[in-house]
């Protein structure tokens, strides 16, 4: 059994909440006391069935003030997988919410209203999927009941979307015709669309394999140095962290940043046991053959596949703060366990999120996405997004407020 993390993109009008509600309801993930709360709220659809959208409704603070609070996470599981759904609601702040939810997901479900087809919003969502280098895209053409379950409508939307995907460079795109409201092709195959030979949504989620980068490009950002300093463990010195990437094996030659010194992996320890190798995402303790000075924020990497180590970079940024990006200001860049002072020296261009075209405008405001040039106070250890997305990501913190003001995806060395 493994975990699949996905985000659903779409507005209330697309039936997004109904789709999530349906998945939870039909997999028996909603319990009596929660259903009771729904019934108390007494919201019904036109045909008298319970309105499942209410399952994803927000907090009192949101309802009262008509605001949405970025992302809510929902969970359900089958015998095969545990699912984590990032539910990013709302029209306002949509870019910020979606970028946040997408950053914590492997797969994105893009909802398209069968009556409307591929519209501006679809393009916006797909652009964000591309921007964050999402590994798998699933287009659910929803409200098929409103178009008489027409195969022709579905095929037309599929063709239109494939054109969009090709333009954006999105790979790994799949399509399912559904009606979240009526439950068609959500958990069970619909008998009203016999022309569709693929899987239901749940079967698809159960079976989809997320394409992982298998290159032996592991990096190990050190979070904490374990030094018991007791009599019997006087010389014990272990580097605790979480493996990023594949291939970490005992005996690997390593390079340590920022000192750019070399050593060898002597042991990989977990819970007092010695491992021969560690997988992507494993939290372990590393021991090296040499007595080198390593502390939190340093990175240990495979010497065969070295990361970049540079001060001047170009990155895509999504801006989250009410205060616009300020090129005069010093910000903090946090990547994994490392904090570095940076200046954003130039805004190269902005993306028009609706047309995906470059706009030469130097002000980056809340919810804007743009390409920026950064100068860092010291060398950064990173990979380019196109080569190793997991090590190209960082957040920007405003030291005046300590708020997270931007998400960064490093694109190039400047």
């Amino acid at each position: 059994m493994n975990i699949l993390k996905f985000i659903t993109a779409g507005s209330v009008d697309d039936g997004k909440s109904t789709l999530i509600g349906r998945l939870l309801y039909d997999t028996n993930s909603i319990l009596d006391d929660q259903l009771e709360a729904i019934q108390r709220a007494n919201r019904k659809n036109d045909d008298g069935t319970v309105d499942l959208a209410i399952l994803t409704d927000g907090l009192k603070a949101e309802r009262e003030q008509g605001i949405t609070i970025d992302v809510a996470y929902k969970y359900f599981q089958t015998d095969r997988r545990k699912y984590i759904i990032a539910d990013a609601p709302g029209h306002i702040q949509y870019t910020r919410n979606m970028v946040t939810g997408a950053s914590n997901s492997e797969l994105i479900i893009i909802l398209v209203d069968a009556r409307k087809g591929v519209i501006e919003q679809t393009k916006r969502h797909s652009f964000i999927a591309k921007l964050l280098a999402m590994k798998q895209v699933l287009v659910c053409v929803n409200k098929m009941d409103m178009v008489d379950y027409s195969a022709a409508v579905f095929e037309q939307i599929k063709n239109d979307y494939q054109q969009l995907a090709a333009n954006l460079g999105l790979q790994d795109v799949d399509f399912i015709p559904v009606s979240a409201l009526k439950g068609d092709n959500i958990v069970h195959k619909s008998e009203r669309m016999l022309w569709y030979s693929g899987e239901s949504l749940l079967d698809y989620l159960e079976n989809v394999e997320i394409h992982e980068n298998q290159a032996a490009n592991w990096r190990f950002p050190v979070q904490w140095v374990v030094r018991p300093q007791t009599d019997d463990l006087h010389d014990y010195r272990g580097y605790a962290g979480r493996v990023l990437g594949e291939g970490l094996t005992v005996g690997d030659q390593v390079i340590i940043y920022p000192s750019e010194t070399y050593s060898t992996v002597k042991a990989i320890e977990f819970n007092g046991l010695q491992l021969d190798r560690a997988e992507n995402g494993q939290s372990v303790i590393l021991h090296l053959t040499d007595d080198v000075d390593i502390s939190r924020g340093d990175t240990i990497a495979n010497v065969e596949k070295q990361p970049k180590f540079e001060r001047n970079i170009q990155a895509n940024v999504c801006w989250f703060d009410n205060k616009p990006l300020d090129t005069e200001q010093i910000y903090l860049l946090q990547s994994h366990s490392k904090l570095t002072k940076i200046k954003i020296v130039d805004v190269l261009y902005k993306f028009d999120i609706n047309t995906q075209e470059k706009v030469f405008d130097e002000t980056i405001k809340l919810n804007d996405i743009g390409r920026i040039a950064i100068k860092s106070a010291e060398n950064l250890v990173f990979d380019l997004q196109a080569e190793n997305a997991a090590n190209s990501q960082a957040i920007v913190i405003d030291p005046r407020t300590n708020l997270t003001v931007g998400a960064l995806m490093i694109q190039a060395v400047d």
Partner: protein
Amino acid sequence: MDYLDHLEAEAIYILREVAGQFEKPALLFSGGKDSITLVHLAKKAFRPGKFPFPLVHIDTGHNFPETIAFRDSLIEEIGEKLIVGYVQDSIDQGKVVEQKGKNASRNALQTVTLLETISKHGFDACIGGARRDEEKARAKERIFSVRDEFGQWDPKRQRPELWSIFNGKINKGENVRVFPISNWTELDVWNYIKREQIALPSIYFSHEREVITRNGQLMAAAPFLNMDADDVIETKSVRFRTVGDMTCTAAVDSTAIALDDIIAEIKASTVSERGARMDDKVSEAAMEERKKQGYF
């Protein structure tokens, strides 16, 4: 990776981020299964070193005696520091007033004792065992959740959390609540407890107990329940799904004596874990309101 390995690795990563980013963290320990799981994860994160934080227990004085006995033996076994904040002290000092009447509980009062304990020791980060599947206000909580100097949670001012990069920068007076098992469900916790053979207080397993029925829920008969002639004491086979204060934690009818029985029971259950928490039934937004005040 197996899903439990994934959840475990994520939680260990978060615990180490707390150790690395904060000057004076603490682990809030209730004696319940979630905080016991956190202690187990902390061992995997920091051994053979010591924990870089003490355990902190907010004692309402209305605990199940089994929980306190378990707490003390666990502390002895792991050899880590325990700090206890007593709600009784807050009452004696006149900082809170005990509720009156039949359904009186110290559940709400412990927020004051918690905030006092945080401020007295200067904790800048408090690790808790809350999970997002528990309740809808929890579903919106971040993993690093910033509280202002009054301990308040402001759902509108939460920081976006991207990838696994956690921003722990805070202003003076603020502190952060950290929830390493946010992404675990009740069933995940039980499956993990089984896999790791983690010991739990006996009240999680079926046992004979004197109970009374109140508002449709089975409550353990205890002196601080303000019982009167209407309350009929019966002896039943019960267990507890969550462990809180005796005045607000209801038992469920159960014959589950082993972890496998409990897991089967949860899979078949049609009521959520917090369905047996009187403290959540006060109003639709009960948890949200308490969190804003500084609750766990």
